[in-house]
C-alpha cells in the first residue's frame, strides 16, 4: 500500500473512527485540531496532533492552508477528510494532490461533477438510474409548464431555481391550484432571489429514504447493499437501518445495480453513497444525489456485511484493489443506528453543550458505540451536536430491536441533555417496530407525542 501515514482533517466521532481504522492497517496517524478540541479523544488517540487554529470551523477545520501546512510538517502520505467540513470540496481534493499527497476519496473532478445537482441528475439518467419525474431544467412559461405537468401528474412541486434548503417551494394538487400558483411563484422568486426561474418536480408522497453504499477502485465497482434513513427531523437523519425494511428482493437487486452502474459510468474510486426516494406503493425508486464521502450511518452497513468501510477507503486510496468482489458481499441479519445528539427533546431539540460528568456505555454481542465522549469531557458549542452513534446488530429486525432496547437502557450520559429519551420511545413505538414509516413520519410523530413549547425560538 502506498500510504504509511494519514492526517485526519476532521474531528469528533468520525476522527476517532478513522484513527482506529488507520491503526488497524498499521498506519501512523496525525490529528489536526482547533483550540476548542485540544483535549478531544481523537487528539489523545492519534500518534501526533497539530493545532490548526481558533474554534470557528472556517479558521480551523475549513482552513485549507493550515491543514496542508500541518500535513507537510508531519510528512504524511495522505489526508482523510471524514464527512462534512472539506470532505466534498473538489478544490481541496485537488490541492492535497497538488501538494504531493493522496486524498482519501474520489478525484476533485468526480466530487465537483457529482456534487452539482443538475449534473449529477444527468449522470444518473445517462447511467439508466430513474430520476424524480420533472422538468428538464427551467420552465419558461405556463403553457410549457402545463404540458410537463400533464405528463408527470399531481401533486407537483414548483421550485425556485435559485432557491434551496426548502425555500421557494410550492405544491399544487390540481390544475386550478397550479394555474394560480405558477405565476405567483415566479413573482415571489424574483422578489426573494432576484431570479424568477422555476422548475417542476413530482411530489413523491410518503416516500422512504433509501441509499446504496458503493465502493470502487477505478476498475471494479461493487455495492454493499442499502440503508434506510427515513426517520428524519429537519432533513437530518435520526435513526438508520440496514437493510431497508420491507424492500422486495427484486427491487433491492435493481436499486443496488443502478448504483453500481452510476459508479461505473464515472470510474468511481473510493466509498460513496447513492441516495434515493423509494415509493412503497408503486415500488419505484428515484435518484436524489450522490455523496462522495463516508456517511455518518456507515456502521449499519459494516454490521450486516462485515466489511470495514473506512479501512477499505484507505486501501483504495493506497492503490490496492477492492478487498471483496460482489459475490463476497452478503447481508447477514439486521442493524440499527441511533444518533445520540447533545439536544434536549423536551425543549424542541435545543442544542446544549456542557460537561459529561459520567459515561456508561453498553457492551455485549452485536453492540457498538462510536463516540467522541469520555468521563469529564466538555462538549464544545462550536460544532455539530453528534455525541455518539449506538449501533446494534441482530439476527433479524425483531432481535435487533430487542438488543437495541437493552443497549439504550445501559447507555448513560450524565451531565447534559441528549436525544437518548427519544430513541428509547422510538424503539418501543408500534409504527417503528412494524417498520411503518416514511420521511415525514418523525416530524408528524413528534408534533403529536413529543412536542413541548420551545423556551428559546430557533430561527434557522
Amino acid at each position, binding site marked *: 500500500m502506498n500510504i504509511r501515514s494519514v492526517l485526519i482533517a476532521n474531528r469528533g466521532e468520525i476522527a476517532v473512527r478513522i484513527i482506529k481504522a488507520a491503526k488497524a492497517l498499521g498506519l501512523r496517524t496525525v490529528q489536526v485540531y482547533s483550540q476548542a478540541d485540544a483535549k478531544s479523544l481523537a487528539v489523545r488517540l492519534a500518534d501526533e496532533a497539530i493545532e490548526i487554529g481558533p*474554534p*470557528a470551523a472556517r479558521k480551523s477545520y475549513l482552513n485549507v492552508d493550515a491543514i496542508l501546512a500541518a500535513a507537510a510538517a508531519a510528512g504524511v502520505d495522505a489526508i482523510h477528510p471524514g464527512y462534512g467540513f472539506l470532505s466534498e470540496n473538489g478544490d481541496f481534493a485537488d490541492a492535497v494532490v497538488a501538494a504531493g499527497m493522496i486524498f482519501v476519496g474520489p478525484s476533485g473532478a468526480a466530487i465537483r461533477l457529482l456534487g452539482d445537482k443538475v449534473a449529477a441528475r444527468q449522470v444518473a439518467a445517462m447511467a439508466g438510474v430513474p430520476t424524480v419525474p420533472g422538468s428538464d431544467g427551467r420552465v419558461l412559461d405556463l403553457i410549457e409548464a402545463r404540458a410537463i405537468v400533464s405528463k408527470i401528474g399531481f401533486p407537483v412541486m414548483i421550485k425556485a431555481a435559485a432557491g434551496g434548503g426548502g425555500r421557494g417551494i410550492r405544491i399544487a394538487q390540481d390544475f386550478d391550484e397550479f394555474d394560480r400558483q405558477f405565476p405567483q411563484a415566479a413573482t415571489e422568486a424574483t422578489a426573494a432571489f432576484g431570479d424568477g426561474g422555476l422548475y417542476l418536480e413530482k411530489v413523491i408522497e410518503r416516500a422512504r429514504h433509501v441509499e446504496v453504499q458503493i465502493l470502487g477502485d477505478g476498475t471494479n465497482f461493487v455495492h454493499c447493499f442499502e440503508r434506510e434513513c427515513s426517520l428524519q427531523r429537519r432533513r437530518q437523519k435520526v435513526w438508520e437501518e440496514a437493510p431497508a425494511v420491507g424492500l422486495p428482493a427484486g427491487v433491492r437487486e435493481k436499486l443496488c445495480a443502478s448504483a453500481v452502474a452510476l459508479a461505473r459510468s464515472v470510474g468511481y474510486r473510493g466509498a460513496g453513497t447513492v441516495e434515493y426516494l423509494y415509493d412503497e406503493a408503486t415500488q419505484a425508486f428515484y435518484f436524489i444525489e450522490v455523496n462522495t464521502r463516508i456517511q455518518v450511518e456507515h456502521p449499519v452497513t459494516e454490521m450486516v456485511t462485515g466489511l470495514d468501510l473506512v479501512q477499505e477507503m484507505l486501501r483504495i486510496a493506497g492503490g490496492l484493489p477492492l478487498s471483496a468482489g460482489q459475490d463476497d458481499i452478503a447481508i447477514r441479519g439486521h442493524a440499527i443506528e441511533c444518533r445520540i445528539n*447533545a*439536544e434536549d427533546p423536551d425543549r424542541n431539540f*435545543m*442544542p*446544549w*453543550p456542557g460537561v459529561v460528568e459520567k459515561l456508561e456505555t453498553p457492551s455485549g454481542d452485536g453492540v457498538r458505540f462510536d463516540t467522541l465522549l469520555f468521563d469529564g469531557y466538555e462538549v464544545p*458549542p*462550536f*460544532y*455539530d*451536536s453528534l455525541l455518539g452513534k449506538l449501533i446494534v446488530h441482530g439476527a433479524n429486525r425483531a432481535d435487533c430491536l430487542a438488543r437495541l432496547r437493552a443497549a439504550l437502557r445501559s447507555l448513560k450520559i450524565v451531565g447534559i441533555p441528549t436525544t437518548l429519551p427519544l430513541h428509547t420511545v422510538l424503539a418501543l413505538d408500534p409504527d417503528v417496530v412494524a417498520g411503518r414509516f416514511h420521511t415525514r413520519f418523525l416530524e408528524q410523530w413528534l408534533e403529536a407525542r413529543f412536542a413541548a413549547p420551545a423556551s*428559546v*425560538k*430557533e*430561527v*434557522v
Partner: protein
Amino acid sequence: MSKLEIKSPLPGMFYRRPSPEAPPFRNDGDPVTADDVIGLVEVMKSFHEVKAGVAGKAIRFLVEDADAIMAGQTLAEVDA
C-alpha cells in the same frame, strides 16, 4: 441613571447581524424595547435569537460580532 444587563441564555458564537452582509440588529446608542432582537447565538450549528428582555434609551455592546461567549455572559448594557 441605572444600567441594565442583557445576558446570553446560551453558550456559542454571538452575531450582531442577521447575516454577514446585513446591518447590525442594533448599534451602540440605539434605544431598545424588551421584544427587540439584539443578536443571534450560534450553538452547535443552530441559530437562536437573543431578545433585549429590557427596555432603555441606549444600548452598548460588550462583545464583538462573532465572539465566542459563555451562557450567562453579559452581551450588552442598557441605560434605563
